């Protein structure tokens, strides 16, 4: 009996499978017919060339922001948090909003590196380095706010359970203390993960510096590359460490924002005390983190000429994640609203009606449209692949997610159980300057990263290219279909191609 198999159906052009106009073939992750050497060049050159004027311009802008941050912090520490707009019922204002906003943004990096790594999503390789760096800087920005919110910042070490003569102990039952542990562990593991991933690339940069005769540069990169030689043993250890760190970082991605959500959810404030908070905060964090990655990558890939590495396909995949997480977050809003009605607790019902129709309705509907409504545009493939649309939506997502935290924090607090305490909360200039300043810190660090560190994981990107397949150059020996052979012929012959024919030959340009 003749049966059709997938080989006969899809392999040969003109088979049943290829009848439609659409194709099941996926575009290669790296485009532009690049060789391994091209990738090294493309990424390394930005750390090696003379600093462009544009970078200085951007950097001076970021430094201005950093200066504003310094000013705002100095004024704050001198006068105390009274300079903020906090009032009697609203004891948590922009500081906690900004903290949660930045921690949320700091989720994309480790999600991309750890969870997508465990799910074998090869497309992550082009964006993981930048996303992880962004994560670290976002966590740094986040930590600013609670640190200075304590008022007497010089006593911040009291947060840690250090033995002391006064027998004073932090309050272990407080989720704010859990935050100290959760965020610091997350920051540490993210830093380690980022650094471990960097080692092979730092080795590459070092080798190129040696070759170019730049001794100091070679020394510095030599120090940080920990004697990387690119040997088999090096790679084995590296990959084992990377896998272990990915496994350890995965629960952290979920735990950090769950703990942040506990800050609100354990208290019995209407609108805060709801059980869906942990997973819904995690989804929101991924949502905002990916939006920030899209915002940054859309610009960076253009400026740094990386459009072949960070392709429209990469951006489209991120936009799908934005659509999914935005919808999850939106459904969580609706669930909260429904359960507030279903639960028939009058305080909860009031809190939610007040959110949507009270004095802060403008913030609520900003949040709703930015987080639930606008991302729905990504159902349309054309919009998912349009740079202006995705840039606009990534910005509105960032705005919407900031407003989500604002809505949660302020709307629940400004209507206390005691109507005599009710008040309207408004930030002061110092709230605003501190927030603007945190962007200064973020972009200062990010620009330094772009300037001095390979911004794409060179070794990992090479690993997902067709050339990395051990059988890639062996198709002449009877394996592979004619179509596959034709595909191989399309690829540029690079240094590895020659060494494949000459087993004694060594690749000359880099160690990775």
């Amino acid at each position, binding site marked *: 009996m003749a049966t*059709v198999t997938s080989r006969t*159906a899809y392999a040969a052009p003109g088979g049943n499978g290829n009848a439609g106009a*659409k194709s099941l073939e996926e575009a290669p992750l790296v485009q532009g017919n690049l060789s391994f050497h091209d990738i090294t060049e493309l990424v390394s050159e930005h750390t090696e060339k003379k600093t462009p004027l544009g970078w200085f311009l951007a950097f001076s802008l970021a430094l201005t922001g950093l200066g504003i941050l310094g000013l705002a912090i100095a004024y704050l520490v001198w006068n105390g948090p009274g300079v903020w707009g906090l009032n009697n019922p609203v004891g948590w204002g922009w500081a906690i909003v900004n903290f949660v906003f930045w921690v949320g943004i700091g989720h994309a990096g480790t999600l991309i590196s750890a969870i997508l790594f465990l799910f074998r999503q090869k497309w992550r390789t082009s964006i993981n380095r930048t996303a992880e760096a962004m994560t670290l800087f976002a966590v740094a920005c986040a930590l600013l706010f609670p640190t200075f919110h304590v008022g007497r910042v010089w006593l911040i070490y009291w947060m840690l359970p250090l033995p002391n003569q006064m027998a004073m102990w932090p309050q272990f039952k407080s989720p704010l203390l859990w935050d100290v542990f959760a965020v610091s562990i997350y920051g540490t593991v993210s830093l380690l993960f980022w650094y471990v991933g960097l080692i092979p690339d730092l080795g590459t940069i070092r080798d190129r510096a040696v070759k170019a005769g730049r001794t100091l540069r070679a020394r510095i990169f030599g120090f940080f590359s920990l004697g990387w030689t690119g040997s088999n043993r090096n790679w084995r250890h590296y990959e084992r460490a990377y896998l272990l760190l990915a496994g350890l970082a995965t629960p952290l991605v979920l735990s950090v924002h769950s703990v942040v959500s506990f800050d609100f959810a354990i208290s019995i404030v209407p609108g805060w005390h709801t059980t*869906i908070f942990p997973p819904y905060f995690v989804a929101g964090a991924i949502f905002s983190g990916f939006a920030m990655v899209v915002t940054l990558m859309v610009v960076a890939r253009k400026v740094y000429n990386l459009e072949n590495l960070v392709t429209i396909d990469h951006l489209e995949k991120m936009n799908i994640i934005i659509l999914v997480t935005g919808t999850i977050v939106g459904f969580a809003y609706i669930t909260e609203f429904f359960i507030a*009605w279903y639960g028939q607790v009058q305080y909860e019902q009031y809190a939610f009606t007040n959110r949507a129709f009270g004095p802060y309705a403008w913030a609520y509907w900003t949040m709703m449209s930015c987080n639930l409504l606008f991302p729905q545009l990504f159902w349309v493939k054309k919009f998912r692949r349009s740079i202006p649309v995705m840039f606009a939506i990534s910005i509105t997502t960032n705005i919407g997610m900031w407003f989500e935290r604002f809505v949660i924090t302020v709307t629940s607090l400004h209507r206390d159980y005691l109507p005599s305490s009710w008040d309207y909360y408004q930030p002061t200039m110092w709230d605003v300057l501190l927030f603007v300043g945190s962007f200064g810190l973020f972009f200062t660090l990010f620009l330094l990263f772009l300037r001095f560190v390979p911004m794409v994981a060179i070794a990992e990107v090479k690993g997902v290219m067709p050339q990395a397949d051990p059988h890639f150059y062996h198709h002449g020996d009877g394996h592979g279909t004619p179509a596959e052979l034709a595909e191989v012929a399309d690829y540029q012959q690079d240094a590895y191609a020659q060494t494949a024919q000459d087993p004694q030959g060594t690749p000359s340009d880099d160690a990775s």
Partner: protein
Amino acid sequence: MSALTRLFFDPVDSDRQRAASRYQFTGDRRLWLVPVALGAAFLALGLALGFGDLQRFFYAYLVGWAFAVSISIGALFFVMIQHITKARWSVTLRRIPEMLAANLPLLGVLGIPVLIGYHDLYHWSHADLYEPGAGFDYILAGKASYFFAPFEAGAFPFFWVARYVVFFVLWSVIARKLYTLSVGNDTEPSAENTFKLRKVSAWGIPVSAVAVSFFSYDMLMSLEPHWFSTMWGVYYFAGGWLGALCLVTFLALLLKRNGMLQHEVSTEHLQDMGKFMFAFVVFWTYIAFSQYMLYWYGNLPEETLWFHKRAFEGYGTVGQALVWFHFVLPFLILLPRFSKRFYPILGVMAGWLLVMHWIDLWWVAMPSIIPAGDHYGAAEAHALLAPAMEGAQTVLTNMQQAPILSDGVPEIASPESALPEAALFDTLKAHLVPAKFHLVDILCGLGFLFLLPGLTLLRASRHALTPYNDPYFDDSLRFENV
């Protein structure tokens, strides 16, 4: 084949004549006959024994049925997620969850006893709660429209039944599309099928997600009509998804053991299923813990009531057992690579977690109305524990009478304020006598535990066991964990 069979059992006629024979069911027919027969027999026996106490029977049936539905929905999500992510690794075993999800129309029919028994099951259905007087419940009256609209409170719960119908129609339509397109692709392969499958999955995921949330509120959360939790939909889904992973793994192992799917489903695929099981054991725990911890910490009576019933009063033993046996034990066993690649351990853990999922739902549903100590043997247990309790009573009384601080508040320490003996005895009794599984519970649970895989295997025997003409089939065959 009749239209009814097509609608409720298998929308595609058997294609054994046309599909590639090497991928077909070659096992003994007892493989499906025995579980189907056993499942039906257990359910019939459960009904027969449950006639004396119909409320118990309806509760037992609800638990078993909700267990089967959750797993089928989990399988439905599994298939949709594979399509939407263009997953390649899972193609060879994708037919099993497709066959599982195809049970949804039938489960819609099998839920009719729950609809019939709604008056015994759901406290909110009692009309006297909505009539002015001593029994009036203003909380339930406030949300009555969620169950009774457009009728008045206490009448026929039209909205509740309508949602039931809508949810099952939606799931059935999605499951049917996923099933027919995939099975159809075996004999008439076309890339179009793959695109259509992706499209169905794209809208199917959000639609099913909303449906499963409200379904879980309707069927399980409303058993305690005063209680509410925004996490509830996620909790039910997390358990069902884990159950689906376990049943798919179990069926794959069963088929392999009987000489099928030898080369198609390899240790590599099963290891990945094991990883998923491990990950979602943790996810279920994360959701369960978050829900519990937040209510425990908030300590509001309207929220803690639900957990109070389940943490004390006899059901606490089951609650604690869930922590150890639904989380700690599977976590430790599934952690090493070895156990995920060793079929006997993987198979046992899949079965184990399925039973745990059933116990989880039992623990959710049963305490709603049925008190723990209300079973045969409770009186004996009380008598046995009485001496111990008297000892505890003495200690507690002494403690209450002893001065706590040297110059503390003296009136606390007066002997009159000690707990009355009978009250203390009752409290301790309620805490110490564990809840028991009733025979009817077990029969209904086993009924669905057998019926679900049995029907799935029967369906599987009519088509190829793996979507061998899927464009990614070869990629899936080559899949390796590196």
